[in-house]
C-alpha cells in the first residue's frame, strides 16, 4: 500500500482574494489521481467552505488533507473563538458573520451544513476561546453495509 498523499494549506484571516486556492488545488490533485468527478466536487466544496470558515470566523488556520486508497480526509485546525452552540451552527441559514463578509456575498449560514451534507464522516471538536478542529472524511470505496 503506497504512502498517503498529504496536502497542507495555510489560510489567512480576512483574505477573500486568495480564498478558494486550497479547494482548487485539492480538486486538481484528486482529478489527476483519477478520482471520480463527483467525489472531486464534494471534496472541493468541503475544502472551500472550510476555507471560508477560517477566513471569516476563525482568524485563519490550517487545512490538512490526507488522501489514501480508501478515503479523503480533510481536517481544519484553528485557534479561533470556537463555536458556542454547534447545534445552531449546523443549521442552514444560521450565521454570525460580520457585515463585511456578508456584503461580499459570504457568510450566508450555509458553510457547516454544506460540509456536513458532502461528508461521509463529520466530526467537530470545539472549545470557546481555544479553537476548533473539524474532521471530515469522504470514502473512496463503497462502504460495506
Amino acid at each position, binding site marked *: 500500500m*503506497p*504512502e498517503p*498523499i498529504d496536502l497542507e494549506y495555510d489560510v489567512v484571516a480576512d483574505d477573500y482574494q486568495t480564498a478558494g486556492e486550497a479547494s482548487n488545488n485539492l480538486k486538481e490533485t484528486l482529478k*489527476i*489521481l*483519477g478520482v471520480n*468527478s463527483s467525489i472531486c466536487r464534494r471534496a472541493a466544496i468541503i475544502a472551500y467552505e472550510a476555507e471560508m470558515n477560517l477566513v471569516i470566523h476563525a482568524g485563519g488556520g490550517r487545512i490538512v488533507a490526507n488522501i489514501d486508497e480508501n478515503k479523503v480526509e480533510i481536517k481544519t485546525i484553528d485557534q479561533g473563538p470556537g463555536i458556542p452552540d454547534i447545534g445552531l451552527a449546523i443549521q442552514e441559514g444560521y450565521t454570525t458573520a460580520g457585515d463585511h463578509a456578508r456584503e461580499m456575498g459570504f457568510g450566508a449560514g450555509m458553510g457547516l451544513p*454544506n460540509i456536513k451534507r458532502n461528508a461521509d464522516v463529520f466530526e467537530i471538536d470545539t472549545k470557546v476561546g481555544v479553537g476548533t478542529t473539524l474532521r471530515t472524511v469522504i470514502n473512496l470505496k463503497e462502504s460495506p453495509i
Partner: protein
Amino acid sequence: MAHSIRISYSACHGCVNCIKSCPTEAIRVINGSIAIIKDLCVDCGECLRACARKALGLDDDDWELIHAHGSVEALPDPTFFAQFGSFWFPEDAQPTLAKSGVNLLIDEAEQAFDLSAYATSRIIEEMSPDQRPLISAYCPSVIGLIQLQFPELLSRVIPIKNPLEIAAELWRRGTKSFAPMTLFAPCPAKITLVRDPVTKEPSSIQHIVSIRKVVHFLMAAGVKVSSYEKSAKSKWRFPTWATRGGETRHISKLAGRELTVIAVSGLRNTKDLLQQLELGRLRGVDFVECRTCDLGCFGGVAVPESRFLAHLRNRHIETDWEVSPQRRSELDALYETPKIWHTREPIPSKQRLPLSNDLSEAMSRLKQMNAIFAEMPHIDCGACGRPSCKAMAEDIVREQGDITDCIFKLREGISSLAAQILSLADTQPHTIQKRR
C-alpha cells in the same frame, strides 16, 4: 474532438506566446513548431490572439469555391449584421445579398433563436430549484471547458441544439431541399460545432466560412448598407445574441416571469462563474450565460469589425420584444416536436487522463511528480515547450519528456559534470612524480 485552428508551419517559430495563452494547456512545442493536443483544445481562439507571427488561422472552407457554384444558402451568425459600418437590418441585407447570389436565411434564423429561447424558458420552469441554475449551451467553447474542467456541471447544460443548427433543420423541413448550407461563423468554436459536434449528431450544415472572409468579399464587391432612422426599431431578435446578455434577455422576454440570470463574457469570468457554480454558490439563480470571448460573440477571432463598435451598434438599435400571438402558437407547436431542438445524446465528459488507472499507482506517480517539480526552477519560462514547470513535471512522469528538456536543469547537469571533470583532472597517477 477535433479543433478548427490551422497552424502555418512555415510561419511558426516555436515561441511560447500561444502556449502561455491557452486556458486548457493544450499546446506544446515539438520539433521547432507548435502542436495542439486536440482532446484539450476548446477552440476559444486565445492562441490566435496571442500569435504575433500570424502562424495560426482558422480552418474554415474556401468561400470563393463555395460562391463559384452560383447560389449559396447562407446562415448568418447574429454577429453578421453589425459588421458593415452601421447596423444592417436583416430585411435590407437579404435583398442586397441576393444580388450577389447569396440567400440569407434570416426568417429561419429568427424562428430558431426564438424557439431556443422559448424552449430554454420552458425547461427552466420544469426544473426544481436544486437543478438550477441551468447553463446556456450556445457557446461551444464554454461546453468544451465544462467537459474538461467542470464535468459535474454537464447535467446543468440546457439540452438544446445550437440555434444555428436548429435554423438549418427548420430550413430543410420547410423547403425539403438538400442544397448545401453555409454558416458564416465568428469563431473556430462554431466551425467545430458543425464539423465535429460534441454529441456526434450529424450537422445539417455543410460549409463554414469565417465572417471575416464574407465581409471582405462583400466590401470588395461594393455592397452599400442602407441607412436608417436613428429611432429605428428592429423586429429582429436574433442579432441581439451577438453580444453578452442577448440570450438571457431573449429568454427572459419569452418566459412568463422575471428570471434571475447572470451573463458573463471572457475566459476569466467564464471560469470564475463556472467554479462558483460548481461550489454551489449560485443558489437562487435560474440561468447563466457564459461566452469565452470578450463582450460575447463580437469578440470572436473571425469577426472583422471592432468588438466595441459592433457592440455599440447593437445597443443603439431598439429591439421589439413583443412576440405576436401567432408566433407564440408556432413556438408552442415546435416545442412539441423535440426532435427539432432537443439534443439526442447527453454531452460526454472529457476529463484529463489520470496518472494511472490504478489509484495506488497514481499516488506513487504523483509523489514522483511532486519531487521532480520541487527541483525545478518554477519560473514557467516555457523554454521546454510546455506551459509551466508543473506541466513539465507531469509530462516526465507520464514518460513524455526528460528532465534535460529544462535548460536550467541541463545547465545544472553540465556544471556538475564540469566539476567532476575538473576533479578528475586534478588527480594524478601515482607513477608520476609530484610537481612542486
